């Protein structure tokens, strides 16, 4: 594992888009905090019939290519989600003419999942998903996007003296591919715990240039001495749009929330993504 020295810079580096503004609103709301308060409330929400949730990925990540099936549940139910292990799941690479019927495995988190032995992500290849369950069929298609190298991260902090309470923000370093639409998703793990913030980027700004935009954590602050893992996932446009909607739903004062549009046919929730994952892990130190 590497150590990443800290640069004393302000956190809101780069083109922070919506988030910079949300942050600003938060600053203002913080100023008003003496007259605001938050409390838990009980709401009477209607119940919806459970729906199948499909998380299907063709990836070079640690789990390889996999499909996770579970059921949605009403808001009021506070138990863990119900997994689905009795489906027929087929992944295929139509460019290579390869088909794989996935078999079920028990995950380290205790949840079963379907894992592929043969399907691997190759740029430009077209992948298909088929899930059969109780006479219903769900299908999807995804084309593996181009990839660029994840070079590492820069850490930014507020100006001034660094201390244990200093909070850091990550700027992932990569050079975007010019002239091509690229979409990125990031996950951050602080001391091996995943931050729930959904973070996506496109290249509307800075096409073909080194990225200067930070990614923010939602719940977990990054401090000196923490071990940080950043996962850069290159995704397709429909999957970007899916996660962009999820990220908007996480905004406190954002737009009216709505369900993301799934690229899976047949009425399931979730997405099918052919994607490239690159990892960068470092311990944060104040060496310089």
């Amino acid at each position, binding site marked *: 594992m590497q150590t990443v020295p800290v640069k004393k810079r302000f956190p809101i580096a780069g083109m922070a888009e919506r988030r910079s503004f949300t942050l600003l609103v938060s600053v*203002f709301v913080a100023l008003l905090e003496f007259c605001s308060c938050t409390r838990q409330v009980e709401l009477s929400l209607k119940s919806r019939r459970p729906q199948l949730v499909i998380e299907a990925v063709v990836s070079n990540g640690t789990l390889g290519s996999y499909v996770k099936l579970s059921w949605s549940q*009403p808001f009021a139910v506070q138990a*863990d989600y119900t997994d689905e292990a009795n489906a027929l799941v087929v992944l295929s690479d139509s460019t290579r003419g390869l088909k794989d019927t996935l078999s079920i495995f028990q995950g380290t988190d205790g949840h079963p999942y379907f894992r592929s032995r043969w399907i691997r992500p190759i740029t430009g290849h077209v992948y298909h998903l088929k899930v059969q369950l109780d006479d219903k069929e769900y299908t999807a298609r995804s084309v593996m996007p181009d990839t660029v190298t994840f070079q590492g991260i820069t850490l930014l902090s507020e100006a001034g003296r660094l201390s244990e309470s200093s909070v850091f923000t990550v700027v992932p370093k990569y050079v975007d591919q010019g002239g091509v639409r690229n979409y990125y998703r990031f996950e951050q793990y602080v001391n091996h715990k995943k931050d729930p913030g959904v973070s996506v980027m496109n290249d509307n700004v800075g096409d073909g240039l080194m990225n200067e935009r930070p990614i923010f954590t939602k719940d977990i602050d990054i401090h000196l001495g923490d071990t940080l893992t950043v996962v850069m996932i290159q995704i397709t446009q429909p999957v970007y749009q899916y996660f962009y909607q999820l990220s908007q739903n996480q905004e406190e*004062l954002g737009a009216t929330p709505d369900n993301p549009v799934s690229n899976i046919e047949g009425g399931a929730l979730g997405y099918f993504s052919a994607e490239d994952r690159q990892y960068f892990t470092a311990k944060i130190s104040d060496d310089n």
Partner: protein
Amino acid sequence: MAHRFALLVVFVFCMACAVSTQAQHAARIKISGTVRDRSSGELLGDVNVRYNHRRGTLSNSYGFFSLVAGESPVQVTISHVGYVDSILPALFTKDTVLEIALRPAALSQAALDSNAVSVYARNDQRYVASQMGISQVDLRQAAKLPVIFGERDVLKTLSLLPGVKQSADGNAGFYVRGSNTGQNLILLDEAPIYNASHLFGFFSTFNSDAIKDVTLIKGNADARFGGRLASVLDVHMKEGNNQELHLAGGIGLISSRLSLEGPVQKGRSSFLITGRRTYADLFLHLSKDKDVKSNSLYFYDLNTKANLALSPSTHLYFSGYLGADKLGLKDQFMIDWGNKVGTLRLNSILGDGLFSNTSFIFSDYHFNILLKSGNNRFHLNSVIRDMDFKQDFSWNSPVGSWHGGLVSIYHQFDPTHFSGGNDSADYTQYKALQRGWENAAYLSYNGKVAARFELSAGIRLSAYSLLGPGKFYKYAPESTAPVDSLSLSGGQIGKTYLNPEPRLALAWQLNKSASVKAAYSRNTQHLHLLSNSVSTNPTDQWIGDSYNIKPETADQLSLGYYRDLSGFRLEAETYYKWLGGQVDYRNGADLTTTGDVQSQLLYGKGRAYGLELYFKKTAGRLTGWVSYTLSRTENKIAGINGGEWYKARQDRPHDLSVVALYPLSARWEIAGDFMIATGNAVTFPEAKYRLNEQSFFYYAKRNDYRMPVYHRMDVNFTLKCRPHPHYEASWSFGLYNVYGRQNAYIIQFEADPDQPGKTTAKQTSLFRWVPSVTYNFKF
């Protein structure tokens, strides 16, 4: 009983009519002129000018009136709320232009305040105007009402009126009859204000010291006004005292105000300069922490006005407004936004009851976000800039009054885009400026068609043309990819939308104290406010009509009943509004970095209907009003909520406000308000699911749930300082949200990261028990 001595009349010049005209119309005498406040020289609008005990006319917002008497000699009587009724001490036998100075009902402001109520009651029986849906804000009363942080704010007072709703707790944004905030035409001395709020909507841009009068017209404005669907908020700045120099101000918890006014040429020309600035950041400077010290957080307003009498019948006015917000964090992050507006106006009395008002207007709204990190320096900004020319003629003929005119506006939009970078890379997004040319011509008539029947009819023809240069894309609702494009060269006129807008209002006087009115109006809106946020944001952007965006339209039908009882007034109005060309954004829209924001938009229609009841007590020691609105607002937009009708966020079926003012003694006065309203329509999740080892929420129909009921009571005490020969002063002590109701500002849904499937709903409330104290003075 009228007070002859109360009047100062200057016979400026008498115009002898042509002999032949005199011979033909010996009995017809035209009386015109202007009406001012005698002590300050301010022009007075809505002054009742009668002749020979007949109903005459009202002065317009520039203090101008004109009437034609069918008999000779003519005796003229003037009356106005808060002023002494006056009979002019002369009988007129030929056409005459008058400059009239009315004396306030009591000489000192202190005495005026204490007896304002009885004066108001005596003058309240105004003749029935056919226009409806009009609310005039009583600024003296508004000054005594409790407001958050003690910051007097006319926009917040509006939400206590029927049909008007505050956008959020403590917010100056407002919705009129179910429409959104971008559908209100906010005019400051005729210049449009594109963002009338400071500090994310918690304060309005209107400094109460600079404001002379405020009128809200809820969708039934006459043909002179156009360009927005829901309402016209017509704000006029004071002209400045043309008699003597005055200094006034106020010191509050959040901001301080100072205004200076006085004559340029005594009795003829005057100026006014008022300023307001918040000083939260000055406290930041007191901090020992360097980082805190270098933050900035303030807003300011600067209003200026000057008027110059070029001749007795020609006046030149200049009004200017400059306001800005600045929030900065240690020179690394800065956001500033603000309006710059200026109006140059020429008022001329052309004779024969003809009055001309020519205006040149400039309006500019911008926001800019600066982000600095290391060698990088980025901006996110947007600008909307207008240049307007307006020519309005009004003519008071023997059979009624006429308005006619032209409006031409050149709009320029700089769409929200990023710019900047570092020494080696440029991240600037090049988005083309967009240009539009808006034109309108109108003609309206207002007059009596029968003994008890008043009619107001008008037509406005509005046009909007897209101007080159530029490349324009067309989109289909199902995709964000363009389906077609075309190019325009510099100055070339592209798509033009032409919309006729008929307006009609009828009033029928049932008896001495009761009347019914009916009105229909069509309004068209060519500029559209894009906002994908639930709060008022300075980054919300305006966009004009295009090949994709068609004009928004509203057809409003309303019916009203009005009754004056002794010391009370009852108003009941119902309305139904059909809305077309409504603009919304797609789910998952990115309005900031997308190359062409039009690819993110969807279109549809809306409907709004309701009943508004207003019961006002105008006489006695206790005054105030009760206002209740029952309403519904819905939208139907292809691509949202499965194309089904859904409630608009601002749909609040029940809305009740109670306002009361009571003088406790000669010096103390208490004012309070209470309001209760249905919560906003909101979208809540009905299910949840797991993806990537975390919980996400599933939303059913849009805006199918409600925030909890909103209610609140505020109170304010005003203490007048002891009378002093050289100055007046008062203290204002307020408490916002007296019983500390935790009104829901937002409700968020959270998942427990350690217990899969466990979720909670959390409500955040702002503003419990906000006390305030303000000191006001006037020299």
